[in-house]
């Protein structure tokens, strides 16, 4: 099956394991070669060292630090040292004893004195909505000092409500699974098990599914459009091919924001696309293309097309037309020749293009924000909102972490199916 032979580049390195008769010499030669090989590797590693250090400092470490926020949030633990101590013996059900109330009162007052009360209130509020004003109200009453602290604490119903103390207790542990669980619409229940959050609060699983669906749809659309176009470019004369390539690349050189804005002009209710559809009689009424899933997929497909097309084209260009002719001359019908000679060789390029587009689509932010409707926002839009608007970087880190894990898993599956060395990215 000559057609299925790997191409030249894919062939394994020449083996150094001579199975000669003189095994003794061969072994020492092999050992010497290995030593030389190791030296080479170390030298090339030394050359790459500045790059690796730069990558680690500017890319690796910041990402790790940011992602660590998903599981490490010491604000509450640092702010409530006495309460942490007092809650050691608490069994987690009902209310803790009066000592815990007193410890909390003392912690709240010391936070007020240090000026960290508001930070603590915000952190508690992220886990327990409404805690902010209750805590600040309590602090003000404790400051007034006209009643004993225990009486003040007991007089605010919030501190005796069933949900309050478990949250404070979980906050006193710096390492927390709260944010990661929230990112998957899960939470701890009262019995210490994990349960789903009520449906009106569940959101992220749905958004992750939506993100993967949109990415897959765009990937398929770019493949269906890009494959024949890449074939055309690969088979026309050089001059024409250059013109076509420029036509593909021209939008690629334009800012993504500009292209997205251009699509909003085209897709809007009284825009060109709707005008054209009405004029052709293809639609009876103006369609809602803006703020819809279909509009989003159209715009993303346009932006992603070069990413899918170029790897496919770069592989197609290397395939000699004579191979197809040889297949015909051996009696293959056109479709059989295409399926058994052409397709297997293009396959790595197709996979690389699809993988590139799929992974880039997982991170789309600006296009869904501008063209998508409220129910077309992808996970990046939520991460951005937690970073910029909510200032809840822990939640943003948790969502990023889950997205990263999914993306790496997906990449792993691709690599396993195909083998990393066969992926032809350019």
């Amino acid at each position, binding site marked *: 099956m000559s057609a299925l032979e790997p191409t030249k580049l894919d062939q394994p390195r020449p083996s150094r394991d001579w199975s000669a008769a003189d095994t003794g010499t061969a072994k020492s030669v092999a050992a010497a070669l290995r030593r030389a090989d190791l030296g080479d590797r170390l030298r090339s590693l030394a050359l790459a060292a500045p790059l690796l250090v730069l990558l680690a400092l500017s890319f690796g470490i910041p990402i790790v630090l940011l992602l660590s926020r998903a599981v490490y949030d010491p604000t509450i633990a640092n702010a409530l040292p006495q309460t942490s101590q007092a809650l050691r013996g608490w069994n987690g059900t009902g209310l803790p004893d009066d000592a815990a109330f007193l410890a909390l009162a003392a912690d709240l007052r010391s936070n007020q004195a240090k000026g960290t009360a508001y930070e603590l209130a*915000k952190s508690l509020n992220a886990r327990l*909505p*409404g805690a902010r004003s209750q805590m600040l109200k309590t602090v003000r009453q404790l400051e007034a000092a006209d009643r004993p602290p225990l009486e003040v604490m007991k007089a605010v119903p919030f501190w005796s409500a069933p949900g309050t103390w478990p949250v404070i207790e979980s906050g006193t542990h710096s390492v927390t699974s709260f944010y990661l669980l929230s990112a998957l619409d899960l939470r701890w229940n009262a019995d210490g098990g994990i349960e789903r959050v009520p449906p009106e*609060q569940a959101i992220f699983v749905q958004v992750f599914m939506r993100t993967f669906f949109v990415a897959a749809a765009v990937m398929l659309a770019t493949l269906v459009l890009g494959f024949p176009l890449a074939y055309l470019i690969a088979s026309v004369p050089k001059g024409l091919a250059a013109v076509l390539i420029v036509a593909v690349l021209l939008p690629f050189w334009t800012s993504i924001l500009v292209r997205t804005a251009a699509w909003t002009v085209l897709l809007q209710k009284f825009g060109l696309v709707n005008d054209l559809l009405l004029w052709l009689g293809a639609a009876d009424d103006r369609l809602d293309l803006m703020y819809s899933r279909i509009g989003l997929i159209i715009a993303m497909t346009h932006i992603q097309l070069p990413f899918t097309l170029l790897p496919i084209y770069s592989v197609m260009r290397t395939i000699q037309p004579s191979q197809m002719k040889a297949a015909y001359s051996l009696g293959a019908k056109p479709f059989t020749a295409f399926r058994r000679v052409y397709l297997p060789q293009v396959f790595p390029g197709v996979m690389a293009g699809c993988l590139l587009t799929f992974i880039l689509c997982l991170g789309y932010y600006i296009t869904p924000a501008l063209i998508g*409707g409220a129910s077309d926002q992808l996970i990046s839009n939520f991460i951005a909102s937690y970073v*910029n608007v909510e200032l809840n970087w822990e939640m943003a880190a948790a969502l990023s972490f889950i997205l990263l894990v999914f993306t790496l898993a997906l990449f792993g599956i691709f690599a396993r199916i195909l083998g990393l060395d066969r992926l032809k990215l350019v």
Partner: protein
Amino acid sequence: MKITKARLFAFAAATAFITMGNAAFADELSIMASGGAWQDAQRKAWFEPFSKETGIKIVEQEYLGDLGKVKAMVDTGNVPIDLVTVETATVLQGCDAGILERLDYSKIAPREKFIEGSALDCGVGLDAYGDILAYDPNVLKGAPTSVLDIFDTTKFPGKRAMRKFPAQNLEWALMADGVAPADVYEVLATPEGVDRAFKKLDTIKKDIVWWDAGAQPPQLLASKEVVMTTAWNGRIQNAIDKDGAPFKIVWNNQILEYDMIAIPKGAKSPDLAYKYLAYISQPEINARLASYITYGPVRIDAASFVAPDALPKLPNAPDHLTAYLVADTEFWGDYGEDLVKRFNAWLAQ
């Protein structure tokens, strides 16, 4: 290349010029505002006269109003701005997170001279704006008389636009469902109240187009994408006055809010910042903004300084205060994050 005398002279002259330039503007105040027609108005009303009077140069920056950017500056200890404009709900958040300076009102103006709720610990009010309803009478049949008419799809069929944010929409939903304005925040603080508000929003959900940026509502009306939209009054008035758009504003049941300005922690010239805050907080100067964009002053005693032709267009003009609600900052500080999450989950359903 030979260094000629002429070149050397040119170089020396250029250097001297740059140095002189720096010396002339030794005092620089960097202000980050949220751009658009609003920042243009501030430039004409406040930045330029302030520079002329004091010799302090104002360096402008723009941002989207997202506090994350300021937090990143404060966290890394590199704060290139001295003042930043923010929304009321954001002031509270920034204050709690420790990224905005607590203001010393003795350096600005007496706190009791401001409209209630417009002089906060970490932010001082710049202007008052209204969340209102706007429509194009050429497109919409009939004339809505209250913002709450946005919930009436039988009388006013067609797409309507609302801000993609729970604040204001939940308040309007409760009022449309019969809750008295005075009780809105009390009801909204209970889980049943939240359910009730979302149930009301459910009734028009399929007809809503959502907007994010303040510039979108006039565009949505102009492109006839929607028949009516909620909006910030200044953006609509701007489209009417500057672009001759035929839009109409409905003031009844508007929600009144304040634009704020704050000093980020670690700002390099807090003294100049206070100087600017004191300048714009004088009643006659606070009133000046209204001549450039239709947002009202926040000083109680500024009303008499407002230009007579601007007054009837302001959200806090007496005619517009028959039925209105003042946004409750404390409430949104408490429940904002939770309600945003619930709102997003609701949107996605």
